[in-house]
């Protein structure tokens, strides 16, 4: 007997089913095979005002789903940074000359201008890979590797995580460990801590390649409190050792009364700075503790996500982050999500706007604005939609503002709060696209 005898029976079957169940099925069948690969792609633009940092980054995450919830993830990111960041030097009423980090030439900053290191230009490539799988009935394990490289910096890392479900999967406890080794190889060698910025081609204050090791530990609990509330609590410990300086950050050496930078004279015939600057010096160890709490509240399709993070480290920096997002569905296929984030941090114990001439040299000092005291606010809106073929699009626009403050006793003579730590405004624009294949 051949199948040819049995033609299309679908219609007859539909009619028979209809009278059996007493209903007419008129809605379309919406079923499709889940793609083997899922891709998430994103293009991010971050732009600071005043000719400072511009970052364009492209991110690609591919996930392969296997049977039994085993997942392979592979990520690739390309970052292109251009622009300039404050070098840490104090603005002066006269022209300032700086030796480039390469030690090959000089650049100048006009009188009254914020000294920016304009050689900040880099392309970073990052690769990540991870494997996740259930271990027995209640456990899941993840192991991953990360690698990134840019002009003067190489990162290699490994991470592991183990989670266990309790209480009918209403509680999940997870434990994570990440190890990283970073290698810095700045052009011209990593500067010696508190070494003077010297003339072009004078590398006497420069060292060689430096390393940094970071160990991160994470302990987390996720709890479904009731039908609408999901709560997460994490504690993490981060321990960094090695060369923790930013090799491009400097401090001006200033007069204790006027606040003006102390003059220097380049060697005969050499080009070099006309004022004294020293490279920063940070401790070679940093331990951070952070506590993170998050609540997700589901309200009939809407989701309110609120989180708070407290971080404290042995450099004296304490920070608080309060963040909230509200996901509002617009019909069945799109949503809008306002986002608000507040951040505040205290300065590091060794943060100082400048070094004072004649005072004993401190062991540690940095004028890096990121180690100073500042508040920041991020406000934005995301709009996302899903096409009928299951592709996800989203666009997010955010505004970021940072207000820094230098302790008043560090302002000397002519120093002015707003020109030493200028406000920063930035715009973030993100396009994302997710699809399966």
């Amino acid at each position, binding site marked *: *007997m*051949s*199948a040819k*005898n*049995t*033609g*299309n*029976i*679908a219609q*007859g*079957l*539909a009619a*028979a*089913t209809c*009278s*059996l*169940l007493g*209903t007419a*099925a008129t*809605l*379309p*069948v*919406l*079923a*499709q*095979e*889940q793609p083997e690969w899922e891709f998430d792609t994103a293009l991010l633009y971050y732009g600071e005002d005043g000719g400072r940092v511009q970052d364009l980054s492209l991110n690609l995450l591919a996930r392969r*789903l*296997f*049977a*039994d919830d085993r997942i392979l993830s592979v990520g690739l990111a390309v970052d292109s940074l251009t622009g300039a960041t404050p070098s840490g030097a104090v603005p002066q009423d006269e022209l300032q000359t700086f030796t480039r980090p390469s030690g090959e030439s000089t650049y100048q900053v006009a009188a009254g201008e914020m000294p920016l290191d304009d050689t900040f230009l880099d392309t970073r490539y990052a690769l990540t890979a991870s494997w996740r799988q259930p271990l027995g009935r209640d456990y899941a394990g993840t192991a991953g590797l990360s690698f990134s490289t840019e002009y003067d910096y190489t990162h290699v890392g490994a991470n592991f995580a183990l989670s266990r479900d309790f209480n*009918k*999967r*209403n509680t999940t406890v997870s434990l994570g460990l990440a190890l990283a080794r970073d290698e810095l190889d700045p052009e011209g060698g990593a500067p010696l801590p508190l070494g003077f910025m010297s003339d072009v081609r004078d590398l006497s204050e420069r060292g060689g390649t430096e390393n940094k090791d970071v160990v991160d530990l994470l302990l987390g609990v996720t709890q*479904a409190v*009731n*039908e609408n509330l*999901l709560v997460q609590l994490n504690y993490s410990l981060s321990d960094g050792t090695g060369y923790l300086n930013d090799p491009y950050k400097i401090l001006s050496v200033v007069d204790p009364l006027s606040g003006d930078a102390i003059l220097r004279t380049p060697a005969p015939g050499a080009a070099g700075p006309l004022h004294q600057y020293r490279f920063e010096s940070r401790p070679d160890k940093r331990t951070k503790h952070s506590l993170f709490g998050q609540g997700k509240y*589901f309200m*009939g*399709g809407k989701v309110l996500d609120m989180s708070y993070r407290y971080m404290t480290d042995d450099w004296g920096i304490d920070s608080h982050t309060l963040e909230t997002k509200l996901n509002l*569905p617009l019909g*069945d296929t799109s949503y809008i999500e306002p986002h608000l984030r507040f951040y505040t941090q205290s300065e590091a114990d060794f943060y100082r706007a400048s070094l004072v001439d004649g005072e004993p040299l401190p062991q540690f000092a940095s004028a890096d604005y990121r180690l100073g005291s500042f508040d920041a606010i991020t406000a934005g809106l995301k709009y996302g939609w899903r096409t009928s073929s*299951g592709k996800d699009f989203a666009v997010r626009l955010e505004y970021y503002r940072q207000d820094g403050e230098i302790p008043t006793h560090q302002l000397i003579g002519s120093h002015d709060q707003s020109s030493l730590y200028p406000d920063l405004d930035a715009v973030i624009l993100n396009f994302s696209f997710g699809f399966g294949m």
Partner: protein
Amino acid sequence: MAAAARQTSPSVTRRQDHWCGDFVAMASPCQILSKSDRATARKQLEQAAAEAGRVEAKYSRYRRGNIVDRINSANGSPVLLDEETANLIDFAATLHRLSDGRFDITSGVLREVWIFDGSDRVPEEGQVRAVLERVGWPKAVWESPVLTLAPGMQIDFGGIGKEYAVDRAAALAASLSDAPCLVNFGGDIAAVGAVSGGPWRVGIEALGAGSGEAFKRIRLQQGGLATSGDARRFLLKNGVRYSHLLNPQTGWPVVDAPRSVTVAAHTCTQAGMLSTLAMLMGADAEEFLERQGVRSWCIR
């Protein structure tokens, strides 16, 4: 099994964006996933478990005293059927006609000689011929609502009951809430309710295949999904694998059937019938499914 289905008030637990409740019925793990609120999800679960228990009690051929038992032990006497059972018999009769006799609710007695326990005990030709005398829907007299089987004949709703129960439970769930709800009775599935949020992700495994390749993930948002397979039920003799799917016209197993056939259709019942019929088509399973214009996945 019905005892398990009737156990103390079932509870639902929170998953990412939905409620999940489990119970056991028809010898299968059963599940209700609902994006409704907790109270409604619990009601959907209770009603689904009750409906599964009811269909099982009424149509299981292993139960004494139910309508199937009365039909099978009538010994040639006519039996008056209730409306629901008459509808199921009508459905089976239509399927027999549509499938050119491949689908036959009277074929169950062949299991007296075919015992699919993984052994090599293939019956003798004569044994099969003898049992085949008592097989064949045309030998039954069906004048709704009265069914008369020849003495020794039996019927079996094994190929319909579970899918029917899924669609019944899904309809009950839909009557309680417009929110998306998925009913899953041992791999026979129906998704009802609003098409909002993401689709349900359903994993399908070819039983006995045991390799990652024989695995499909389906995203189901609306409609029914059913899988037929030759599971662990087969005989193996002289290197020949005898599938548990029997051709009611020859009394012998279907040759070259896929290991597993999954079909997506408007209802779980339609999906179940199409996947069963595809298996009965043996080597022509894929061709048959192609002609039906449905989404299907075969594993060989």
